[in-house]
């Protein structure tokens, strides 16, 4: 088993903000009378058991999570795992059977139709896998759709929609109809439509899955750029592990209608909750996701009677001061600690060349831990290792 110990600092790639969207005990069963199925689910029955016993289809068996302001929260899973249902429960395109969805503390499930419409118009946008552009409207009219529905004046919504199109690089295509645009451009219009009304929450349902890989990469880049500019709260549904690793601040993995793990990409790579999660991320290139901080582990203290070969000196404030050879006498000079944010590929050479495990420090100089050659190799090997484990059960 691959062992990459949790780092003392935890995941600092997660931007900390206020909780915007808190979901608790959310369930959805597709039945005229949901009560027996809900009762079974509460007692821990699986989706398959409910289907078999009651012939009731379960969309979401149970989901609970909190999404913070400015976070890209990716919900992933295979088709049929309930991820597309969850995102539709969040804006009540599908009515939840049970549970609460709190947006800034206000439970959306209890809202009247009118109140819900207000929330949808003001706070939430959605981007669809199939783009869902209106074929009888130009790119500009499509981008202005949310504003039009909300009753924004013609001239004003035109300006806002044009600005949104410009942000996704389509200002020159404002008067084109969707069928005159390529798939990537159509989804940019979909993105512009979602951005135009300046929502605080964006729901993206497999938004880039229908695009070819090159365009998909561009769109992910685009999303990250937009997110750097205005830090919205984004719920992104995906079945693509690479995509999730690339854009997510945190990932929730769904299996058969339940969330089996929530964590940062590094946390999930480092400690997958079960074989399903492990298999899901098997193909992911760990070196692209992990940073120096994620591999750092406490230095070897030389337990079991054998003295440590190197000592890492840390002052009272936790700042790294230097490395001493095991005898405690001679200092190792010229050993620069590596910044915690450095991507793994950039430290390969340094770890290989260093005489001792390489110290890692945060930007403020705090000592995080060390990366030994063995730990580095084990981390890079995890994909193969996980694959072998899965094969051998």
């Amino acid at each position: 088993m691959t062992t990459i110990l949790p780092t003392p600092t935890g995941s600092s790639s997660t931007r900390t903000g206020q909780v915007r969207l808190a979901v608790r005990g959310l369930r959805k069963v597709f039945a005229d009378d949901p009560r027996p199925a809900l009762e079974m689910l509460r007692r821990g029955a699986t989706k398959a058991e409910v289907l078999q016993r009651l012939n009731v289809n379960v969309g979401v068996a149970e989901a609970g999570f909190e999404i913070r302001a400015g976070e890209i929260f990716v919900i992933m899973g295979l088709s049929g795992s309930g991820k597309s249902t969850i995102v539709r429960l969040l804006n009540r395109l599908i009515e939840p059977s049970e549970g609460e969805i709190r947006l800034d503390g206000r439970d959306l499930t209890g809202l009247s139709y009118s109140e819900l419409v207000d929330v949808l118009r003001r706070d939430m946008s959605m981007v669809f896998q199939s783009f869902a552009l209106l074929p009888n409207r130009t790119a500009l009219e499509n981008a202005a759709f949310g504003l039009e529905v909300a009753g924004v004046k013609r001239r004003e919504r035109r300006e806002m929609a044009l600005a949104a199109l410009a942000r996704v690089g389509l200002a020159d295509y404002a008067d084109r109809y969707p069928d005159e645009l390529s798939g990537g451009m159509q989804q940019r219009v979909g993105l512009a439509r979602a951005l135009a009304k300046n929502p605080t929450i964006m729901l993206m349902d497999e938004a880039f899955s229908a695009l070819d890989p090159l365009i998909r990469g561009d769109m992910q880049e685009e999303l990250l750029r937009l997110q750097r500019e205005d830090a919205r709260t984004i719920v992104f549904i995906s079945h693509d592990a690479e995509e999730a690793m690339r854009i997510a601040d945190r990932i929730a993995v769904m299996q058969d209608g339940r969330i089996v793990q929530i964590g940062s990409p590094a946390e999930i790579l480092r400690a997958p909750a079960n074989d399903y999660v492990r298999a899901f991320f098997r193909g992911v290139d760990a070196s692209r996701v992990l940073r120096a901080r994620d591999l750092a582990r406490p230095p070897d203290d030389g337990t079991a009677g054998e003295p440590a070969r190197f000592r890492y000196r840390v002052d009272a404030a936790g700042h790294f001061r230097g490395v001493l050879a095991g005898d405690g006498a001679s200092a190792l000079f010229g050993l620069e600690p590596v910044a915690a944010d450095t991507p793994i590929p950039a430290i390969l050479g340094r770890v290989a060349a260093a005489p001792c495990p390489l110290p890692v420090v945060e930007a403020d100089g705090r000592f995080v831990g060390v990366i030994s050659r063995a730990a580095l190799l084990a981390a890079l090997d995890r994909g193969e290792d996980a694959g072998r484990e899965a094969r051998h059960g």
Partner: protein
Amino acid sequence: MADAAILDIDWLSETIGGGIARGSEWLVTAILDHGQPALTLIAAAVDGLGEALDGLLLGVPPWLLALVLSTVALWRVGRGFALFTLVSLCGIFVMGLWEPTVSTLGLVLASTALSLIGGVPLGIWMARSKIADGVGKTLLDLMQTMPAFVYLIPAVLFFGLGRVPGIIATVVFAMPPAVRLTALGIRQVPAELVEAGRAFGCRGHQLLFKIQLPNALPSIMAGVNQTMMMALSMIVVASMIGAGGLGNVVLQGIQRLDIGLGVQSGLAVVLLAVVLDRITQSFGRGFGPDRRRRATAGTARRRWWRR
């Protein structure tokens, strides 16, 4: 026991068959006795519409009407069809059938308008409600398959002979395609478009007018086309209760065994049908998702003008 069973069946058939006969007679009598104000109102409205259209179309000089129709044909379809329209109308004029043809056109337009006023909302309702759909489908089956003569008689009882019962019987016959194709069109709007509308906070009427109807328009226009064609075929039959127009001429041809007159008037009906069919079909292509294609087709046609 066996005798009793046979008796029972006789009794049953008498009760049900007789019940239906008595029931419908009772209904007609009841409407005649108590529904007079409503009948008068309907008659006045329908007659007013028919009168207005008839007067308008007959008030226009024949050459102007022919020119207008040919221009529409040129705009919507193409120059070949514009020529066909012009020649057809000239032919009808030369055969001396101009007046009944225009009168028939007026009746068809009035019936089609009334069918759409009733049919499109009914179609929308059926697309949105399962109960309305169930009831509506049965009603439409009835309207489409009930032999026309069966309701021509009560129509005469209610409204007397003339234009009004003719138009009303035609509406009964011609409305179903408008209803069915409206409902079908709305149901066929891609689910993700409806989802997009709801996700962006559409209320019910916004969903209908901004998403469902625009995307159902090609289907609805196909319904308009079918309704108009059925109205044209029915209005000829309705001449038997005095609706007037080309049907009268056809009827004269039959009564006098005048094959020439019959063929002439029949030909006029067919020519009118072709012109109306092609023009309404072109509107079906030009709306909704195909708007752009219409626009480019328009520029192509404009280029032809410049040449």
